[in-house]
């Protein structure tokens, strides 16, 4: 019996029919972008330079050089790669948005992390990356992919779903398993708010990419073991879109709620903007700022 065609083949065929682009051009460009992702991982792991605000910049290298006390080299690699990309992003470095810049670390963290762990060449990442893009496209037709529009569930949720499907295809899973992995990843991201400190793409975005890169690998592992999303993928998307619409503006990238409104968050923001901090983070307050 023939193995079923990979889901990416169908995605590529459909996309080229719609856009009139040549499949080989897309594959070549995807390989180049995988190279760009790799370059951003390498720069991120090599640097401890602070970001624009000074809140992040040393976490990826810190993890990469720390002892692997859990004896979980795959997890450490996936997390370090993801944070390397987002710290590079936060210092105005060059990255590949996937699908956004705030979530740029999740797919390279999961896919390139797994590939490096298993010794898989970049050429074999092209088709999984095309599938990731196809999943992103399918999500963006029904829902939003930006934190401003749908909260972080829409942004990191999309990248985790894309990454999960890609990892399944890389490891030889069926098209059905790839879609199930995406659905499981989304199902377990519903409700996540976008509340970055000061509105900057740094805290919690850098560590969140580390988390959701691992989340994507988890979803792939469940789907490869035949676990299926109890709620069908289309309905999960619908649920997520509806939660996004219910989400108050304060939790959609405006820095008016959640972590952004903590005393530390407010104090850091005030210092960034050259103002005197207000409230408990202000002069005489209790907050010790965790940065240089």
């Amino acid at each position, binding site marked *: 019996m023939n193995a079923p065609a990979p889901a990416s083949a169908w995605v590529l065929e459909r996309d080229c029919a719609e856009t009139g682009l040549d499949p080989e051009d897309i594959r070549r460009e995807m390989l180049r972008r995988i190279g760009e992702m790799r370059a951003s991982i390498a720069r991120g792991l090599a640097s401890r330079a602070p970001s624009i605000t000074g809140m992040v910049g040393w976490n990826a290298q810190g993890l990469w050089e720390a002892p692997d006390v859990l004896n979980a080299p795959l997890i450490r690699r996936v997390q370090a790669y993801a944070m390397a990309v987002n710290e590079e992003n936060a210092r105005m470095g060059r990255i590949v948005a*996937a699908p*956004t810049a705030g979530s740029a670390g999740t797919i390279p963290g999961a896919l390139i992390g797994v590939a490096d762990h298993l010794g898989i060449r970049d050429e074999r990442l092209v088709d999984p990356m095309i599938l990731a893009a196809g999943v992103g496209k399918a999500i963006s037709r029904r829902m939003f*992919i930006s934190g401003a529009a749908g909260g972080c569930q829409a*942004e990191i949720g999309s990248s985790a779903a894309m990454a999960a499907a890609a990892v399944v295809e890389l490891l030889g899973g069926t098209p059905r398993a790839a879609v199930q992995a995406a659905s499981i990843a989304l199902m377990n991201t519903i409700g996540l708010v976008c509340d970055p400190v000061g509105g900057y793409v740094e805290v919690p975005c850098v560590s969140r990419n580390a988390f959701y890169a691992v989340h994507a690998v988890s979803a792939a592992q469940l789907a490869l073991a035949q676990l299926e999303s109890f709620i069908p993928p289309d309905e999960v998307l619908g649920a997520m879109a509806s939660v996004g619409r219910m989400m108050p503006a304060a939790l959609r990238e405006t820095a008016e709620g959640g972590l952004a409104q903590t005393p530390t968050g407010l104090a850091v923001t005030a210092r960034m903007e050259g103002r005197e901090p207000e409230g408990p983070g202000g002069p005489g307050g209790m907050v010790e700022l965790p940065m240089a």
Partner: protein
Amino acid sequence: MSLLDMIGPVMIGPSSSHTAGACRLGLVAHWLLGEAPRAATIGLHASFAKTGRGHGTHLALVAGLLGHSPDDSRLPQAFAEAERAGLAVEFRDVDLGDVHPNTAHIDLRGERGRVTVQGSSTGGGVILVTQVQGLGVNFSAASPTLLLRYPDAVGMIARVASTVAADGVNIAALTCTREGRGGQALLAIELDAPLSPEALAFFSAWKDTNWVRLLPKLMDG
């Protein structure tokens, strides 16, 4: 939207909506002005005004006005680049009403002409241009876009469309708005391929049109 918009763009951080999208909005104004920009007034609405500074939104918009793409490594130095290029930029916080939170209004002047562009950055570096020269439009610059302004008259859309067809180019989408009957009209046509220089020259030579621009495709896909 293509696969390359989902894994991409390759861009300078930190935000696809606040940096790459902002840069593309600047690029729209750059191409529509069609000459070296000398002065710009940029109105920033809601989230662009509130969190733009730490996202490099201001830098990205200016980089776009200078014609630099979102992956151009000069983006973090855009203010210095503008000074070198003789472009003076002024930013204002504005309330543009019930529009997307990431919206900018750009008023760009050159030696000869002036263009106003309003558009939103809707996520992932994708943009939606909603106003050009004060008239409503609705295009994403994901494909080449032809813009013509003329005094409203019978048969103009048909004449323009037949010239585009004669050039062998397919029309993907079209919007036409006008100030009122007989007032200024703006036609925005999204194309599957760029028009030939001859077709463009033909439009520019029409006495009925007073402004013609071909905006190149600004997305990668």
